[in-house]
């Protein structure tokens, strides 16, 4: 599904990612962990095509096609979804409006007709109920005045509407209360299928308790320093990152 090979990314002329290699097959959920500032969001943004994130080397393909050559909106229409660590507010643009435009952009891409207003409403209300979201959020400006938790649920709502093939979720679990965490986890599990893949960026084992990952990768200082099974996350929970990042410092010192 997603194949990243030796990817190097610079922001404002500073290289942040120094060669990332990561293979995420269809049907799997991988967790990406690592200390603050290690480059997790940078990887997510580079994959989604954020302007200003310069790929200086390496490749990334999504379902066999070169991801990096496409405009961000084309990547999204092709089925890549980025759940933002900090979702932005779009004042005056209703949540319903954004969702409708987004869903229809994806449908047009697939050669399907646009969704009619009734079908859209039924679909979105069903998913809002699933996410235990208040329907009044539909007519509010996108994320405008939403609480931190509401914003994160809103990201998952968008994901459920768009039904992406690949979801990259950047700390969607941060800032959630215990109940909300379960709701968000339910949303992610709902999307899980043999034809889809998820890259979960998180700091906490507690999300992984609900969404069991197939693999866990640890990013430190712009490099993947360790990959392993679900037990790696538990080990990190117990020991922290020091034993891994120490390695990296050593590598760089040489």
């Amino acid at each position, binding site marked *: 599904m997603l194949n990243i090979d030796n990817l190097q990314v610079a922001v404002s002329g500073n290289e942040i990612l120094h060669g990332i290699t990561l293979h995420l097959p269809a049907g799997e959920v991988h967790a990406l962990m690592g200390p603050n500032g290690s480059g997790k969001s940078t990887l997510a943004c580079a994959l*989604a095509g954020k*302007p200003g994130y310069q790929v200086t080397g390496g490749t990334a393909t999504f379902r066999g096609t070169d991801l990096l050559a496409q405009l961000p909106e084309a990547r999204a229409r092709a089925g890549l979804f980025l759940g933002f660590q900090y979702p932005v507010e779009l004042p005056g643009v209703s949540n319903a409006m954004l969702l409708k435009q987004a869903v229809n952009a994806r449908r047009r891409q697939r050669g399907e007709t646009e969704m009619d207003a009734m079908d859209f409403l039924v679909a979105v209300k069903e998913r809002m109920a699933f996410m235990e979201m208040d329907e009044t959020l539909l007519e509010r400006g996108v994320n405008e005045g939403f609480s931190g938790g509401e914003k994160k649920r809103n990201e998952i709502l968008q994901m459920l509407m768009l039904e992406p093939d690949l979801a990259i979720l950047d700390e969607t679990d941060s800032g959630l209360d215990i109940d909300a965490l379960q709701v968000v986890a339910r949303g992610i599990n709902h999307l899980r299928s043999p034809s889809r893949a998820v890259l979960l960026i998180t700091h906490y084992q507690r999300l992984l308790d609900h969404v069991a990952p197939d693999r866990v990768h640890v990013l430190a200082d712009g490099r993947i320093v360790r990959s392993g099974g679900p037990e790696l996350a538990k080990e990190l929970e117990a020991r922290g990152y020091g034993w891994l990042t120490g390695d990296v410092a050593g590598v760089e010192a040489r």
Partner: protein
Amino acid sequence: MNSKQSVEALLAKEYRDGFVTPIDEDRVPPGLNEAVIRLISEKKGEPDWLLAWRLAAFRHWQTMVEPTWAWVHYPPIDYQAITYYSAPKRRAGTRSGDAIDPELLRTYDKLGIPLAEREALAGVAVDAVFDSVSVATTFKDRLAEEGILFCSFSEAVRSHPELVRRYLGSVVGPADNFFAALNAAVFTDGSFCYIPPKVRCPMELSTYFRINAAATGQFERTLIIADRGSQVSYLEGCTAPMRDENQLHAAVVELIAEEEARIKYSTVQNWYPGDAEGKGGIYNFVTKRGECRGARSRISWTQVETGSAITWKYPSCILRGDDSVGEFHSVALTHHHQQADTGTKMVHLGRNTRSTILAKGISAGRGQNSYRGLVKVAKGATGARNYSQCDSLLIGDTCGAHTFPYIEVKEPSARVEHEASTSKIGEDQLFYCQARGIAPEEAVSMLVNGFCKEVFRELPMEFAVEARKLLGVSLEDAIG
């Protein structure tokens, strides 16, 4: 892609209505003097009192200086280089009263304003002004059945001189300001409308202004009178060819609402704005004012200003009647090198008068957008209330937004509130939309629409659609 560049690039705009109609025009030589004014008056077969009114205005204008207080910058205008009268010639063999020149019909068809009544937009009567004259007015007969007078200004002078004489200049006097005085001296045509007592106008009335001839100014007057208890909704649209020279448009609009009358005046202003380098475009220096003369009357201005190189206009309300209401809803967009200094004046004279101001300014490219508004409450206007809200939206970092609210309150029981905000369409917002499959152009248009929707809501249906389209066109390529 460089992120700064990306916002800049969304700012290239295609002007849709920039063509020139190939038609012979009867032109007065350039220049401004009494002889030219006499010639205009004579061409229109005007009565002596109107010529005297023009000449008095001209003499006064000669003593006035062009205002410089607006936040706009342009080289001095040479008033002697302008042609003050240019009207399409009738084809040989046709007489007045014959059908309209097919070339003109084609022009208006192209602009989406069919003048043949059977093809016309249902429920909209149009007065079509081409350069210095009105070339057609539709649905006149249908409106006459209700006692409504809707015709060109010139025709009104001929057929209803008593009404014109009574109301002309009663809201915007011939010496009101520099551009209004110029207009009073040289105005060539425009629309006239009178709604008799208790009549609710059964269709939207509209004027479509088209500048075609080069090196010509357009100076028209609109006079709308809503008699006791009547109601009318009026629309105004305008376009001009793309030219490298600036052209002057100095119009005057006067509205009079008698007791319990309601006038809703909507404008979608799309004069040629000039090119991306700021070359050419219309100078739109316009005086629009309405008077709520009678008790419980209401005047509501809605404007969407997307065109013109420079806009200088302040549609205002004199709230003379007790319990009268004035409203101003505005979206002004400046892009490339466009400059707009626009706003309103709400003058509260009567008791319990109320006014609302909602002004939205959008600046992109190197556009400069200023809101300038005056809220004045006279002593004795007890219980007067005003609420003003001015919001600015910036796209990119090379544009500017300015707010100049003036408040003069002489009545202690008055309540005046003012709120203002400035926001910016940011890279992060655009990327968020892109990450949802929405292209930046579409994202900007969504954000701009969201910003303007309270004003669009005030526009009649067809106009709201047109306004959205125009803003879409105007901002095409503002990022990318």
